């Protein structure tokens, strides 16, 4: 009896494969009614908050601009689980299974870099929203981004430390397994050494791993070096705990970070300890730059009832840049779209005017913000070096 059942089940399975296989072939001939734009972002894991904020921006843009060249745009959102391997899997899925026309993502340069070779080999134009490591787009003609890159961000923070805080000695804490953190720390180091003219301006570098929760040993080591300022680029998850533990250890000097700190979780977890922390980011709601910014702010506040984060505006912009390129290309051919994206110049996005340089990076101003009274407060805007 059992054997017959198994045989029957096997037979049914084989039949099912045939049926679905056939229907797939038939579907291929029909022209698709919608065009698909893939979005791969961390929706779970350590960077989930970052991914969620970018997706909000992309979804808002999709709601406001749902059509291009008479076709409906459908978003295919996949989770890269805050993991490099999963990021590559997610990109492969978008390319092979969903056959998307273009891709948006990802929060976290490491994840974008993991997807880089996949989008390049399959020739799918991809626009990153907030991945700032230069290597994301370098040597990859299919990867673009609507944000500035880390050499600029590192210089901005080094200038801030040197000019505004009067710092002459820095200690650095970096997330050793994170390309974004290591890259930004390096660009800061170069810029700070150039500013001070002192090869020994960086007193010490402490490392930690993704997911670490105890930084007391590293911070105790740095404390005895007596730096003027600590630069600690890294994800908000680890950074919030890191700043908290630094304060608990009696470290009172300013602690600086990068754009990834701008997440509500940074404030929730760090609470009073993160007060006064300063970081650079892309956009501020206090100073809307373009007409699109006004529209974005108004619609976002209406839809979500809160203030948007910088990366939300960038997610919004990434979508607009792709749509604009499709319009200019006048077709859904991926290579044509790629060429159109590469030509993007003076495009008014929500987070500023977007002009892509020869690497596919946006040249834009940076904003410096500080944590004050449990919120992010705008300090100043730094223009790009032309």
């Amino acid at each position, binding site marked *: 009896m059992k054997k017959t059942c198994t045989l029957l089940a096997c037979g049914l399975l084989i039949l099912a494969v045939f049926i679905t296989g056939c229907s797939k072939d038939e579907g291929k001939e029909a022209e698709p009614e919608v065009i698909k734009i893939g979005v791969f972002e*961390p*929706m*779970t*894991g*350590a960077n*989930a*908050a970052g991914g*969620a904020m970018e997706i909000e921006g992309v979804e808002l843009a999709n709601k406001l601009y749902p059509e291009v060249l008479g076709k409906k745009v459908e978003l295919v959102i996949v989770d890269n689980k805050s993991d490099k391997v999963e990021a590559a899997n997610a990109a492969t899925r978008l390319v092979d299974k969903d056959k998307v026309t273009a891709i948006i993502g990802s929060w976290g340069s490491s994840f974008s870099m993991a997807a880089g070779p996949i989008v390049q080999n399959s020739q799918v134009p991809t626009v990153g929203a907030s991945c700032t490591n230069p290597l994301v787009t370098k040597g990859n003609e299919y990867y673009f981004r609507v944000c500035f890159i880390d050499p600029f961000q590192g210089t901005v923070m080094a200038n801030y430390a040197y000019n505004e805080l009067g710092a002459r000695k820095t200690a650095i804490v970096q997330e*050793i*397994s994170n390309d974004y953190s290591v890259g930004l720390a390096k660009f800061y180091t170069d810029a700070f050494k150039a500013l001070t003219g002192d090869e020994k301006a960086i007193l*010490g570098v*402490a*490392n*930690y*791993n993704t*997911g*670490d*929760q*105890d930084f*007391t*040993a*590293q911070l*105790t*080591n740095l*404390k*005895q070096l007596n730096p003027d300022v600590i630069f600690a680029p890294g994800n908000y*998850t680890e950074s*919030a*705990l890191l700043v*908290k533990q630094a*304060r*608990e*250890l*009696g470290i009172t000097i300013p602690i600086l970070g990068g754009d990834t700190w701008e997440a509500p*979780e940074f404030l*929730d*977890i760090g*609470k009073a300890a993160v007060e006064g922390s300063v970081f650079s980011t892309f956009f501020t709601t206090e100073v809307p730059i373009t007409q699109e910014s006004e529209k974005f702010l108004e619609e976002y506040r209406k839809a979500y009832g809160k203030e948007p984060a910088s990366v939300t505006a960038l997610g919004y912009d990434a979508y607009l840049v792709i749509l604009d390129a499709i319009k200019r290309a006048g077709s859904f051919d991926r290579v044509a779209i790629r060429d159109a994206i590469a030509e993007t110049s003076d495009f008014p996005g929500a987070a500023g005017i977007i002009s892509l340089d020869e690497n596919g990076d946006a040249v834009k101003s940076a904003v410096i913000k500080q944590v004050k009274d449990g919120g992010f407060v705008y300090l100043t805007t730094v223009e790009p070096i032309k």
Partner: protein
Amino acid sequence: MSIQIFFQHLANAISLGSLYALIAIGYTMVYGILRLINFAHGDIFMIGAYFTFYLVTMFLMPWGVAFIVAAGLTCMFGIAVERVAYRPLRDYPRISVMISAIGASFFIENLAIVIFGGRPKAFPVPDIFGKVIHLGTVSIVSVTFIIPIITLIFLFILLFIINKTKTGMAMRAVSTDYEAARLMAIDVNKIISITFGIGSFLAAVGGIMWGLKYPQLLPLMGLMPGLKCFIAAVVGGIGNIKGAVLGGFILGLSEIMIIAFLPSLTGYRDAFAFILLIIILLVRPSGLLGQSQMEKV
């Protein structure tokens, strides 16, 4: 390195080590009695922390009550896991139960991602646990004093239960030979449920203490502490409760001291913990305190 800095490192090490010890106790106790490595222990630890979070933020319980209720709920959760994932496999080879434990671990993690969401949550820390105490140049958070005390209290309670009570005697009997224990009219299922209950209770206490020290909750937060405490348990001699405490302290101390004295090796911190595991397994497979069969409970 100045003596003050050394004491600061030592304080950091004791606080980390006692956390490891606290979680490792539950781990090793379940192994000692069932000869089962409960891979879901780290996830039960995570569940305990999340329960506390929701009891405080959603049900607005005062933290003292929330801690006890959360530990109680986690205790029941642990018993339920045993019922569903381990009990049906009681008469199968050990390897089946171990694989089932790995499955249970993944299941709980992914369930937590779906239910609690992937974004980190801030664990509510009452002021008295977050106070910074300055002893000369050494700064210590008050929870750092509390964790070792809690660890020692639970160590003694557990040793008392196992060595002095009737239930404890039954547990030891099940540990030695559960077929024989069954013949002696010991309700083996009940004893194993109690064991899991106590183990999960300890995991919850560990989770709460972890949350007080590192106030950030993530569905995968139990993964690394779970593995580290497994190492601590093996180093001390798996199955031996005093050994787990010793192993926890050794692991915490060596993790901090390797960064303190060899800052360039910081990136290898986790690797070091696993190297320690491999060395112990090669040199002294039964662990530091694990040689005597009689000690095992």
